[in-house]
């Protein structure tokens, strides 16, 4: 019998903050998204105060002050490092670990006998809690979709203490009947509305959906979900992290931008980022899109203004110099002084594995000099921190403040920055 578990961090970002700030335990705590915009993580105490997920911060400012809710800007350097540590521990428990997101991983437990599964999973939980300080929940079943449901039940029912198994098919219908269809993994808002209108409101009803009707009215994705609910595994666990086919980097600006310099710097900075990412995963890209979004200055309608340019590279590449050059050229071409820009982004398309590089004498871009410069830049940034050295096109620290993220309430990078380690002051 195939046994798959999903392991996820409880209130993950808040839990990361609590590792180094134990006084936050038992307090209402929230973490805000980029630009301190919306709530992206809440402690149980904050949930009890009625703070919804995704709520814009300005709407709960008063509640936050009144109830003394602790607020933090997202600290992705910290969260990413904590996530890596958790994944490393999971690898000691399972030969196959698929990292689904920063706080969720699927693991295969075929090597554990059914009678031992609960003890095994509780051991995983205890170790992660002790070694790292993050509480996790585990759901186990025969398919990923069912495991996700088990995980949800584990979290919602306190008596289960963050572990639940749907390995026993006899109990499936009873529990699937209690799960709303929109909470089934893979069922989006539109699909769930359509299902709801047609009387499919629970996971159990979805499991028993008439096949012919489903085939006629829904996509193959839904049918896969239905199969999975029936114990037929169709969504495989991959041990490999497939290199991403597109790499995107975009940011909304904290204040609208008018000048071409600011816009160009922001875009160039994104370009550097995606180029470095492509190199890190050893892929080269064939094409790039640069897009902008904003509002016409004297236009009172809510209409947004979009523009984008796509270039094909002369050869697939991941060189910063080429990617930044194409980005700045695109901005020059697209720039419109009547627009107040809100956001810009860069997408590298068709990222494919870098084959052993044939140094082509006829290449205009893949020259030895360009490789060497890139290598040195990557090296320096890895040693001293991202952004230590960057192309002039992405601006100086002063000029960057017009478009960089507000992170006014970010906690320390306790595990990734030498200067921000936890400091303990010994009494005299």
């Amino acid at each position: 019998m195939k046994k798959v578990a999903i392991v996820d961090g409880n209130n993950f970002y808040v839990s990361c903050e609590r590792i180094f700030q134990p006084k936050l335990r038992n307090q209402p705590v929230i973490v805000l998204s980029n630009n301190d915009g919306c709530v992206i993580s809440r402690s149980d105490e904050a949930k009890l105060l009625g703070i919804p997920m995704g709520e814009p911060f300005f709407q709960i400012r008063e509640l936050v002050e009144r109830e003394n809710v602790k607020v933090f800007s997202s600290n992705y350097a910290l969260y990413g490092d904590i996530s890596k540590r958790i994944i490393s521990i999971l690898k000691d428990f399972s030969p196959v670990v698929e990292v689904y997101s920063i706080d969720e991983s699927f693991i295969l437990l075929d090597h554990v006998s059914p009678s031992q599964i609960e003890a095994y999973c509780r051991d995983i939980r205890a170790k992660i809690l002790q070694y790292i300080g993050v509480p996790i929940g585990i759901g186990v079943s025969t398919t990923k979709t069912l495991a996700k449901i088990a995980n949800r039940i584990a979290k919602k029912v306190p008596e289960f203490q963050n572990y639940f198994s749907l390995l026993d098919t006899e109990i499936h219908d009873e529990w699937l009947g209690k799960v709303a269809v929109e909470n089934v993994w893979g069922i989006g808002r539109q699909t769930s509305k359509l299902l709801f209108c047609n009387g499919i409101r629970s996971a159990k009803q979805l499991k028993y959906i008439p096949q012919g009707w489903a085939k006629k009215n829904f996509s193959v994705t839904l049918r896969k979900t239905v199969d999975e609910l029936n114990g037929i595994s169709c969504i495989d666990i991959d041990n490999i992290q497939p290199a991403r086919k597109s790499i995107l980097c975009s940011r909304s600006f904290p204040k609208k931008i008018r000048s071409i310099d600011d816009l160009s710097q922001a875009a160039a900075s994104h370009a550097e980022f995606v180029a470095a990412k492509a190199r890190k995963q050893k892929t080269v890209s064939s094409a790039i899109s640069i897009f902008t979004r904003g509002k016409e200055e004297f236009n009172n309608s809510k209409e947004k203004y979009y523009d984008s340019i796509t270039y094909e590279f002369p050869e697939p590449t991941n060189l910063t110099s080429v990617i930044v050059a194409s980005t700045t050229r695109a901005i020059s071409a697209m720039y419109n002084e009547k627009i107040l820009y809100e956001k810009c982004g860069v997408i590298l398309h068709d990222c494919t594995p870098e084959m052993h590089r044939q140094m082509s004498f006829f290449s205009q871009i893949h020259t030895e000099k360009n490789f060497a410069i890139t290598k040195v830049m990557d090296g320096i940034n890895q040693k001293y921190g991202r952004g230590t050295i960057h192309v002039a096109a992405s601006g100086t620290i002063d000029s960057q403040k017009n478009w960089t993220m507000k992170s006014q309430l970010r906690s320390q990078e306790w595990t990734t920055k030498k200067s921000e380690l936890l400091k303990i002051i010994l009494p005299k």
Partner: protein
Amino acid sequence: MAQHTTIEKFLHFNPNFSGRTYPFFLQKLSAGFPSPAEDIVDKQVTLDEFIVTNKAATFFVQISGNSMINAGIRDGSIAVVDRSLIPQNNDIVVAVVNNEFLVKRCVIEERQIILQPENPDFDPITLNEDMGDYIWGVVVSCISNFR
């Protein structure tokens, strides 16, 4: 046989504490025959081997103050804390007491853990788990920089 070795093979830039080897040569080598050192370069001893056993559970903490100097921890040093270890009697531990971080030597008794003060003028502290006190981790190593 290799006539010269390219930059790619030898450039390993590494952040501190990464466990990667430090670069040995930083320029192309031109040699008429393969260097006997070539294969040995990768096996350099690293700092991690001395101080990190369980990487996922190891954290670095900066210490300020000299009260633990008798234990070998001085002002400004970096304590290496392993959270995977069960504290043993006489271990130096990082503990959380009343939501504050402390570094102390611990005494493991049958039913309780006591944190010893280095200064005899101070009282020992008993960990009160009901109040949320806990051992955060065991100090396994300490890094003091002289310069």
